[in-house]
């Protein structure tokens, strides 16, 4: 098991990758990416059981589906740093002929990606299918998903949430990134959703909360607990309370950086808050 300090080093480097990728093409989504950096780093470097290399079927390993595909910068950086493809390829993010499309896709054959996402609300259904395929294949590994909280406004999620509980898809751990922000403002201003926890519980899920979703210790302990709750007849939901734009002071406490790139000066400032650890691409 890597030490938390090692995960912290990866986290800081991934933050730099996100900021530099988005800055270079003057587009992309840094806010949600930075908010989920600790989680995705922990997932790929500690929480999930992964095979070496990549094949689409992913038998006998854990799978992850990113439903809120706009946070592709953190996904790409973590995949590259985990060895799925060369780190230098992060240089091609959002460029013509790149495998690193604005939103993740299988279309260009990027290792690590198993479904296109971007149009919101579809990832949980796909993950349920993959989880049920695992059961048919007598494969005891787990399926993980990540969804934005604003994304839950898409109705397909609730079809999937109802189905997963009703059909006892208990090899699924779905994480909701509760940062309380979406493009047009706070989720409470755009569309108040009430208690997400009460909703999942009412639908029949086993729900646990990680109150500090940007703290690696809290994440590691939380997912250890989440894993222990699988295989008991209920899908597991993790409510991960995160700070959008985490790690860059001027990007926190606002929805402004959902889909906006930093200027040259802002990049310099942001990078100075996250000194290089593993080496820039």
């Amino acid at each position: 098991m890597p030490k938390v300090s090692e995960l912290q080093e990866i986290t800081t480097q991934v933050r730099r990758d996100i900021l530099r990728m988005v800055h270079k093409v003057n587009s992309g989504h840094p806010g949600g990416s930075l908010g989920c950096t600790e989680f995705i780093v922990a997932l790929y470097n500690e929480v999930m059981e992964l095979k070496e290399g990549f094949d689409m079927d992913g038998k006998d390993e854990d799978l992850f589906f990113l439903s809120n595909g706009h946070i592709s910068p953190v996904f790409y950086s973590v995949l590259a740093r985990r060895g799925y493809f060369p780190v230098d390829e992060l240089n091609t993010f959002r460029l013509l002929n790149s495998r690193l499309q604005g939103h993740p896709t299988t279309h260009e054959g990027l290792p690590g990606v198993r479904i296109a996402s971007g149009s919101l609300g579809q990832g949980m259904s796909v993950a349920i299918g993959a989880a049920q395929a695992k059961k048919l294949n007598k494969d005891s590994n787990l399926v993980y998903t990540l969804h934005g909280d604003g994304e839950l406004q898409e109705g397909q999620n609730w079809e999937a949430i109802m189905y997963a509980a009703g059909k006892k898809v208990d090899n699924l751990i779905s994480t909701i990134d509760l940062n309380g922000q979406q493009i047009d403002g706070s989720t409470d201003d755009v569309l108040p959703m009430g208690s997400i926890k009460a909703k999942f519980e009412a639908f029949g899920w086993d729900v646990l909360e990680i109150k500090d979703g940007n703290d690696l210790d809290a994440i590691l302990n939380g997912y250890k607990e989440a894993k222990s709750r699988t295989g008991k007849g209920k899908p597991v939901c993790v409510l991960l309370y995160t700070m959008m734009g985490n790690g860059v002071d001027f990007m926190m406490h606002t929805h402004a950086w959902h889909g906006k790139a930093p200027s040259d000066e802002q990049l310099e400032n942001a990078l100075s808050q996250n000194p290089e650890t593993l080496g820039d691409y």
Partner: protein
Amino acid sequence: MKKYIDQGKNDTRSGYGEGMTELGRTNPNVVALCADLVGSLKIQEFINENPERFFQIGIAEANMMGIAAGLTIGGKIPFTGTFANFSTGRVYDQIRQSIAYSNKNVKICASHAGLTLGEDGATHQILEDIGLMKMLPGMTVINPCDFNQTKAATIAIAEYEGPVYLRFGRPKVANFTPVDQKFEIGKALMLSEGTDVTIIATGHLVWEALVAAENLENQGISAEVINIHTIKPLDDEAILKSVRKTGCIVTAEEHNHLGGLGESVARVLATKHPTPQEFVATNDTFGESGTPAQLMEKYGLNNKAIEQAVLSVLKRK
């Protein structure tokens, strides 16, 4: 012209059901999904024999398309089942992103297509589905003509790697193709050779085209009838070969003339061999309640309409 015998009326959806039963016995990777329409899709036998390979989704078609995409990850070959309207328009973005763009090996199997589901009316009829599905890059679009061909197509698409839209219907119609005929995706079938006009038909309109050709023969007109069961990829060569001989063409389909088989054929002809063409299809309209026969008569989709279209196109040669 070659004569075809109706072996006994049957519904194309039952051809799908029998095809699924056979796949259940021969291909362990095939799984079936359904959105609360098991009886309509005729898959009870598959379910009885393979309960662990059946997924009852409930009335949630968007979720069904996503689950189907996910089941391919792990090597399954999912066949989704619901009405054509709920298989396409209702879930277009799910199919577009999670299946077509993601290139997932999902078979979208759609019953009750076109007008001939009858009395339920326009909310359940769909005349736009061929257009919707053929516009998706990488999607194969198949519309078999009778029970035997639907069964053969169901079995054939399991062997093909990639997303497929399989369109069939509700009413009992003539079953006339040979029971042992091999189904080749993308390969048009010459049903009856002729010299004066080409009739290209798909789905329920193929039998109507054969009836029309027989009536035309009695008037001294030699019609060539081709069954296009695969609208995408289209068998360009078969179409071009025929019109080079006949010099004019009628296309016939239970679908809007916008976006259907006729437009696909017109594109081939306009770029390769400009040819006078008439369209037997609905004219940018929704359907309505009525019996299948009444609807096909009112909306101009029967053998009489094909005959009239032939007489019109012959004048333009």
